[in-house]
């Protein structure tokens, strides 16, 4: 039986995974998931191509530790025996870290990212590393040097990007939770495309230590899960100050699971007119409007709002993110990590040839754009200008959150598009992030929750955004929508 035919949707919940580990063993559960990946992920199966590397030895050692604790009746953590996987931008000992790029092929990081360490401390079994757009640059996962990823819900479609492998692996049931990163939409957009929950925590909420950086003022770490309650659990595991990441926030972490028990009546829900304009697919509009009506039925007050600078968010993002990337990616020069060009006999030729051979076209495009925007004569016109517009985009949210508790709108303008459809038009590809980028610039939290499917069965995601560090409110609204959608389906 194909994983796609399993009843009730193929994504595995934490509860189901924990129970399977408890009733059998974490080791047997890990083996079962490895078999599933071996059967279905490759070209001889469904060709999803979500895994880039398996960390079998480490996973089975961790599963044995969990099994020993469980056998003694001890608490093995909130993720005891749960099979998970992480986007291939996290450092993890015992597995190569490529960031989807040839320039890091074969590099084995000698340390663990904090998010990886926290997952294991909570009892999770990390199966391996997941495919992504090269250096997290892309909206379709077609920019990976290791091949595109297919959307498990529609194999001729993209899973979204850049965390496409993370969304696809979760949606296919290969893991019960996955980690991704989101710089301009890279968790939320693939979550919407693959019909799973994806969370962008507030900037500073989750440590980025051990993450291969793309754009440091924007990059964030967050989970993909089968449902909203699982997202609350994962966020509780991941959140908190990390002495190894100076940008992580020293603020108390809410009990997100406890927060979910509270109702949503009395919440003021902002609906931004700019998110429902031209270019929005009518089926997505209808599904999102229905989700909003469901919140109203639960006692939320619906408040029309305006985010007037939203249309400038994409150009602002592409100047700032590429400028930061051009700086961050200068470290990849063949000296310290990954392969080095064998075709050079001076240092500067070695730098240039290693980068020419190692980077793919989208990464080169962004490095060039970022370098251009930062270069003498253009800095004020592009980089400083974009930083100023970032202030305006962010202030739109501060103004809105003076009036509302959460903002709800579509996650993507279209359902998942076909593989190859947008690869030749960078601007069209960038516009796939039109509803996700503004929250990235402002640093607020956001999430995508499945809210139905199109006539053709393609997943639709609704986006929920809330104030900085108010993930609790965001998750409560997400749960209300999820509950409404589930009730509507059983009617």
């Amino acid at each position: 039986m194909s994983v796609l035919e399993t009843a009730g949707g193929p994504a595995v919940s934490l509860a189901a995974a924990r129970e399977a580990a408890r009733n059998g063993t974490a080791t047997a559960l890990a083996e079962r998931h490895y078999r599933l990946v071996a059967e279905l992920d490759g070209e001889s199966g469904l060709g999803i191509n979500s895994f880039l590397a398996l960390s079998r030895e480490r996973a089975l050692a961790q599963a044995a530790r969990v099994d020993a604790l469980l056998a003694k009746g001890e608490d093995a953590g909130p993720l005891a025996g749960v099979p998970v996987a992480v986007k291939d931008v996290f450092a993890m000992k015992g597995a190569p870290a490529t960031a989807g790029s040839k320039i890091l092929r074969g590099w084995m990081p000698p340390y663990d990212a904090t998010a990886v360490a926290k997952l294991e401390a909570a009892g999770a079994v990390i199966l391996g590393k997941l495919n992504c757009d090269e250096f997290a640059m892309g909206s379709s996962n077609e920019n990976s040097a290791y091949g595109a990823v297919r959307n498990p819900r529609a194999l001729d479609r993209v899973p979204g990007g850049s965390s496409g492998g993370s969304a696809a692996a979760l949606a296919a049931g290969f893991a019960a939770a996955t980690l991704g990163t989101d710089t301009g939409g890279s968790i939320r957009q693939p979550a919407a495309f693959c019909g799973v929950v994806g969370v962008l925590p507030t900037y500073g909420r989750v440590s980025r230590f051990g993450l291969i950086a793309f754009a440091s003022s924007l990059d964030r770490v967050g989970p993909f899960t089968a449902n909203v309650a699982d997202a609350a659990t994962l966020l509780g595991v991941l959140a908190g100050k990390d002495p190894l990441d100076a940008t992580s926030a020293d603020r108390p972490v809410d009990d997100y699971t406890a927060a979910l028990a509270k109702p949503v009546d009395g919440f003021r829900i902002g609906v931004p007119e700019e998110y429902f304009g031209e270019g929005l697919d009518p089926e997505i509009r209808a599904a999102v409007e229905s989700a909003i009506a469901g919140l109203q039925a639960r006692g939320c007050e619906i408040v029309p709002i305006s985010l007037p600078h939203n249309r400038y968010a994409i150009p602002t993002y592409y100047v700032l993110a590429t400028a930061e990337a051009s700086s961050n990616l200068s470290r990849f020069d063949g000296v310290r990590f990954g392969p080095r060009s064998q075709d050079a006999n001076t240092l500067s030729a070695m730098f240039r040839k290693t980068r020419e051979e190692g980077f793919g076209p989208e990464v080169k495009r962004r490095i060039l754009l970022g370098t251009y925007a930062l270069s003498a004569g253009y800095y004020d016109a592009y980089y400083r200008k974009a930083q100023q517009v970032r202030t305006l985009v962010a202030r739109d949210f501060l103004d809105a959150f003076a009036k509302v508790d959460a903002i709800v709108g579509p996650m993507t303008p279209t359902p998942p598009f076909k593989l190859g459809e947008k690869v030749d038009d960078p601007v069209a590809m960038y516009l796939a992030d039109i509803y996700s980028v503004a929250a990235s610039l402002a640093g607020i939290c956001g999430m995508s929750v499945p809210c139905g499917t199109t006539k053709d069965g393609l997943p639709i995601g609704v986006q929920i955004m809330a104030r900085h560090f108010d993930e609790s409110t965001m998750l409560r609204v997400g749960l209300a929508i999820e509950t409404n959608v589930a009730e509507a389906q059983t009617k």
Partner: protein
Amino acid sequence: MSGVSLEEVRRVAELANLELTPEEEPRMQRDLNAILEHVAQLSELDTANVEPMAQVGDLLGTLSGEAGESLRADAMRPSIDRKAVMAVAPESDGRFFKVPKVIER
């Protein structure tokens, strides 16, 4: 805006330590111009009195003070073992990264 010339593409590639192939150059020129055309709409906005935002902390007023009062203690702690780093480097003598010759003599 007149657009980015092929010459500028080459100059920027040099600044970025990228060596583009002859086939890549015109494609990058086309793409950069398409993206910059999209970016040009930022000039519609009057931002004369708007503070630039480099970090989310700029917005929230939570950036650490100039005196560094929120910095961690300047104390010694273990770092990654050098041997482990050198073992995964492209070329190393075990203590240093080796690179091609920089100075001719």
